[in-house]
């Protein structure tokens, strides 16, 4: 079973390393410069965009990085991550509404609930690989959707949870501009955690499993347990994003659990670049901005555009934004050295 990162078509070209290796190979000053630019953009963002859109980008960035942790670094395509994003959104909303706790506590509770849910789903899903893994996660996410739909006394069914408060020690966060800066540290922590996981020895084993599961098993690594751990960590990070999304919109609807949400997360990752981690952040920015622009211009059939992007990216742009840029930069550097 080859991973989705190393496709035969790509293998024929000069080795295009995954994000992990790209970062390792780029000179130190490039990495620090990119980090500085990224942080500067993150700090500036709500000044250049509608703050509500900027908040959405942050949430989706966490979601995309969570999906890439599995897709790009473990070789497992989860097509059901809306289950974790949405479960956390509901739990966060319920905790915030009923307990009146500061919103970061509610989000943490939501993300923990998502991680707990990821244990049984992951345990069953990692028994299969490849396309079956995608179908199994998709099916279990649909099961969570049906449960939320039926459990109306808690989830309010079609009406959704309304009036999720943005409580933080009495600070006034009703303005999205200030709310953005309130959640930015949480999002950066989540992204840093994902980066740390990928860089850790644990992350290296995941990449090893992705590239050659049989060898990883022969070396004595408990492959299923590693995959399950990655799945739960990914569920937690997706849950962070979903919880913040709920507080950001002050509203939770069944849409957060729908399979189109899962699919959107995957395409955000593919558009940004599978296995690049930060590509997902870029992809989130592009997709959220595009959807905002489309709904602003009154275009009804958003699915037509997102579906079209899906088809085009998969056919023509499989390396994604970050992957293409990294390949280009590396080729430039190699040419100069020669």
């Amino acid at each position, binding site marked *: *079973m*080859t*991973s*989705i990162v190393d*496709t*035969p*078509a790509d293998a024929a070209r000069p080795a295009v390393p995954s994000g992990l290796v790209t970062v390792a190979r780029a000179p130190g000053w490039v990495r620090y410069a990119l980090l500085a630019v990224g942080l500067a953009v993150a700090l500036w963002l709500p000044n250049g965009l509608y703050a509500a859109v900027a908040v959405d980008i942050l949430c989706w960035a966490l979601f995309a990085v969570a999906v890439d942790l599995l897709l790009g670094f473990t070789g497992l*395509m989860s*097509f059901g991550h809306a289950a974790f994003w949405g479960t956390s959104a509901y739990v966060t909303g319920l905790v915030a509404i009923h307990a009146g706790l500061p919103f970061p506590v509610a989000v943490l509770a939501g993300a923990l609930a998502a991680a707990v849910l990821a244990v049984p789903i992951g345990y*069953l*899903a990692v*028994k*299969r*690989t*490849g*396309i*079956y893994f*995608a*179908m*199994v996660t*998709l*099916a*279990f996410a*649909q*099961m969570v959707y*049906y*449960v939320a*739909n*039926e*459990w109306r006394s808690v989830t309010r069914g079609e009406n959704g949870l309304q009036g999720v408060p943005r409580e933080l020690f009495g600070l006034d966060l009703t303005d999205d501009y200030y709310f953005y800066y309130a959640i930015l540290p949480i999002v950066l922590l989540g992204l840093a955690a994902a980066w740390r996981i990928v860089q850790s020895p644990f992350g290296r084993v995941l990449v090893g499993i992705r590239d050659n*599961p*049989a060898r990883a*098993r022969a070396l004595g690594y408990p*492959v299923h347990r590693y995959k399950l751990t990655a799945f739960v960590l990914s569920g937690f990070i997706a849950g962070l994003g979903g919880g913040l999304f709920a507080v950001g919109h002050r509203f939770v609807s069944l849409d957060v659990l729908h*399979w*189109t949400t899962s*699919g959107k997360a*995957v*395409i955000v990752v*593919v558009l940004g670049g599978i296995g690049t981690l930060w590509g997902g952040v870029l992809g989130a920015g592009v997709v959220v901005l595009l959807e905002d622009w489309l709904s602003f211009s009154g275009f*009804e*059939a*958003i*699915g*037509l555009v*997102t*579906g*079209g*992007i*899906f*088809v085009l990216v*998969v*056919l023509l742009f*499989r390396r994604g934004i970050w992957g293409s840029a990294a390949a280009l930069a590396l080729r430039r550097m190699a040419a100069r050295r020669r």
Partner: protein
Amino acid sequence: MTGFLQNTFNGLVSGAFYALLALGLAVIFGMLRVVNFAHGAFYMLGAFGAYVLLTEAGVPFWAALVIMPVGLGLLGMALERAFIHRLTRLDPLYNFLLTFGLTLILQDLVKLRYGVQSSPYATPSALSGTVDFGIFDFPAYRVFILGFALAVCVGVWWVLTRTRIGMVVRAATERPELTRAFGIDVGRWVTPVFGFGIGLAGLAGVLAAPMRAVNPLMGADLIIVVFAVVVIGGLGSIFGSVAAGFGIGLVQAWGEAYLSAFPIVSQTIVFIVMAVVLLWRPAGLFGREEAPA
């Protein structure tokens, strides 16, 4: 007892739809290693096409039952040539994503033109009555669906096991390299088989039109249940997919009838069955074990 028989019959009828869809998925997967996400969208197009043919051109049900599967089969072949073909050498996940994108496009195109409300489709007059089974009456149209779907499944089984084309397809499914080495042009059969699978989805859609509400999203949630069905049956096994289709139809109907006090359970029973099968036989009830990973 009468109630139980009626539930069983209803389960078999909804199982017939699962079986037809799962059969198409399994045939396509066998030949192309593609899991076609757009299968539900083609089911919807079958139903919608029948509805549009009737209301805008006066084409009756029986003609639609032929026109739509053939037309959609041709559309499927065109799509296979235009898109899917380009990705079959890559990881199957790419074609899964591609067909997911096609699903969104097809759904929204129909939504844009016809809106999201459901449209009724009259049962063909020859099948509008009921059939008397002695202890209970059953709508004639449902009896027809069950018989027709069974006939189609048996027909496909016959083609696959008793004809030269079927032998080529089965050989290409199980050992593509070896089949090529025997001088058989496997590539020739890829596009027709894809079109055939899509045609089956369209057929299921036309059959569903008089029984279920025709709307642009009718295939959207259904396809996920069908995915669960093929995971349960084992996607590599054509017989397994059909058997699991009918089986899940039965389990769902019984669940709805006897577990109606627990709507959460009866709504999600398919996925509970899938979880049990994954624990007990990860490769599916009739599937073969994959290479360990």
